[in-house]
């Protein structure tokens, strides 16, 4: 159903959902780029952030507290997981790393199911962002516009940390050559723990920010994980700007394809991923020979 109003609506929707995908994906890509670990528990962390925020919201009724708690809780969870489990796996083959993170994901999902059950939980949007906003011929949920702004701000903050701070410099150096960073006398393991925490935080933050848009179930992260992988592959594995570009592209593909034939929107995502892998295997913004 291609009409001019619908096209503009979908274009905007692609941007909004793409920004969120970008935010989740950048956590995945930072962890992979720095630690070399493909974190299959990333979807579960996204979900866990939502539930952590839900608990905080139930306790305080404050959206801001919920978002802050969801994000901080995941920093701690991420750091603990890195210290206790992931660290034992840096020198092991990639398939072991994939298996262990996959396992961690299952454990997180089932623990949440044990505690909260499968019935959905909802976090309402803050009262100032409830309802719809008329934007010309497009009516869009106000909170989704807020999500777009929050995601953009969070991505900008991450950019500043990565490209304008000493920590960011170490992280970026770690992506290039972690051995050399270690030789320069920097405690690489402490940085790794922090990076894993920040990566998990990006997922958790996105999880709680997204919570009022969806309804929370323990299985929430599963389908998101698949989409995030596609985003990272399109953008370039390990590349922070790549995750942002990939997220926006994925959001637009999902939205715009649905106008022509909704059944093909997911398929198109994989078609584009395949094309990227064929024509530019390192991803759109990935560097050759790295990752």
């Amino acid at each position, binding site marked *: 159903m291609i009409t001019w109003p619908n096209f503009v609506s979908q274009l905007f929707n692609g941007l909004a959902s793409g920004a969120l995908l970008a935010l989740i994906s950048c956590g995945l890509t930072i962890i992979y780029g720095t630690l070399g670990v493909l974190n299959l528990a990333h979807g579960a962390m996204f979900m866990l952030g939502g539930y952590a925020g839900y608990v905080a919201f139930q306790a305080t009724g404050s959206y801001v507290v919920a978002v802050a708690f969801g994000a901080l809780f995941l920093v701690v969870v991420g750091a603990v997981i890195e210290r206790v489990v992931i660290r034992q796996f840096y020198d092991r083959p990639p398939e072991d790393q994939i298996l262990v993170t996959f396992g961690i994901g299952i454990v997180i999902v089932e623990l949440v199911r044990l505690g909260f059950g499968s019935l959905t939980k909802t976090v309402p949007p803050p009262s100032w962002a409830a309802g719809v906003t008329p934007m010309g011929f497009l009516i869009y949920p106000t*909170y989704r516009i807020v999500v777009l702004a929050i995601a953009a701000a969070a991505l900008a903050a991450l950019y500043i940390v990565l490209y304008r701070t000493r920590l960011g410099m170490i992280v970026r150096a770690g992506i290039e050559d972690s051995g050399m960073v270690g030789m320069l006398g920097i405690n690489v393991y402490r940085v790794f723990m922090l990076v894993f925490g920040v990566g998990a935080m990006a997922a958790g933050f996105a999880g709680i920010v997204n919570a009022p848009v969806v309804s929370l179930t323990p299985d929430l992260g599963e389908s998101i994980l698949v989409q995030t992988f596609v985003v990272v592959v399109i953008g370039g594995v390990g590349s922070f700007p790549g995750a942002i570009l990939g997220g926006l592209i994925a959001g637009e593909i999902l939205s715009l394809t649905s106008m022509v*034939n*909704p059944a093909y929107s997911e398929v198109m995502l994989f078609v584009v991923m395949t094309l990227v892998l064929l024509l530019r295997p390192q991803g759109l913004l990935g560097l050759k020979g790295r990752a």
Partner: protein
Amino acid sequence: MQFARSGAPKRRDVLKSGAVLAATAALPGFWMPMAQAAEDQPAIGTWPAGSAGDSVFIGISVPRTGTYAVQGEDELKGYMLAVEHINSGDPLLRAISPKTTKGVLGKKVTYGVADSEAKPNTAVQEQSRFISQNKAVLFTGSTSSAVAVALNKFAQREKVLYVTGISGSNDTTGKDCVRYGFRQCFYGQTAAAALAPVLIKAIGKDKKAAYLTPDYTYGHTVQKSMEEYLKPAGWTTVTNQVAPLGAPDYSSYLLNVANSGADVLLNINWGHDAVLSTQQAKQFGILAKQKLVIPYQIPFLAKEVGAELTAGVYAATDFWWTLQDKFPLAKMFVESFEKKYGYKPEWGAENAYMSFAMWADAVERAGTFYPPAVIKAFEAGQHIQSMVGEVWMRAADHQLVRPVVIVQGKRPADMKSPDDYWEVVEIVPGEGVMQAPDAFGCKLGPYT
């Protein structure tokens, strides 16, 4: 005849048993019925090994994780209650299966549970395990028609009986029907035929309809049936938004719906997909402009999205607990279910309970676990009591002839108790809403 516990048998015992053997051999025909039975009923599937002991096993695979997890758990509770009632000879079960005393043919029923994740491959793998390791005489489970269709074919191949769980696709007892599979619940065709007249009367003629459809056999057949039954009243389809099972976000589909100019939104999505798409339809302001219809009722939907969203919404269903005011068996079921699990059963649990009770009835009437004999007992079309009145199995496609219940969501102010979400508007008799048995291409296949 008793042999000495240790040492060689006593001479006297040997002589005695020899005499018994000789006498029986001399009686012509003594061995005949046994020999005849063995010839008529050669080993098939898990028969006779599965029922050789003093208990029989049922394999249950329901989704306990994923999009349909909530509905799967409710279904499982219905199965467990039925097993408990079969083994204890509960009055409710005996009202459905009058020959039941305790157990099935005197054998205790045991079961194993596995998580199908609503995935056909997983479900088939689990049931193979139940068949090979536990010699299951019956298996069940599906909250997705994709699973039901896969298990149908698996049942026919393995020659082990299968009662469908929740399955709304026309194909389950249509083109994918099998001799070894039986369905209790309502489905796309009956839902559409029963619901369409109510919709046309309440909403009017010549309406523009938008559909949200899950991308598999259930979604496609229900959508097609609804379209077919609404068309004569001038309803047109302006958009059909087909989405994958477990989609994380419905925004792009809903924007298409919002821009389609539809008057009515028919949401065929199921499980958590229905919850999410309905909530997001509200977020996009669609429900303020378009009337929501749920062609195939989703257990717990009203509870999850809240009564404000389901108020006024029409839906077709198998069962709703307030039917207890009309049907005594429904009252017995709702009471014993609530006593055991602490909440009012939804239709998934009712469907599950009835499926097992009907199987117990068929086996008791057959007098054997031999599958072809049990199938013939099902096919005899015996009228049995259910929680929605008298029902019977249609021999030609193994679809139960049963009423479809039309409900409408109550406004929060009209709810008399926290679970009082729906009002039963109409109970449409089953016969009139079913297609001819071969209309969807059903060919049942062989007994052996």
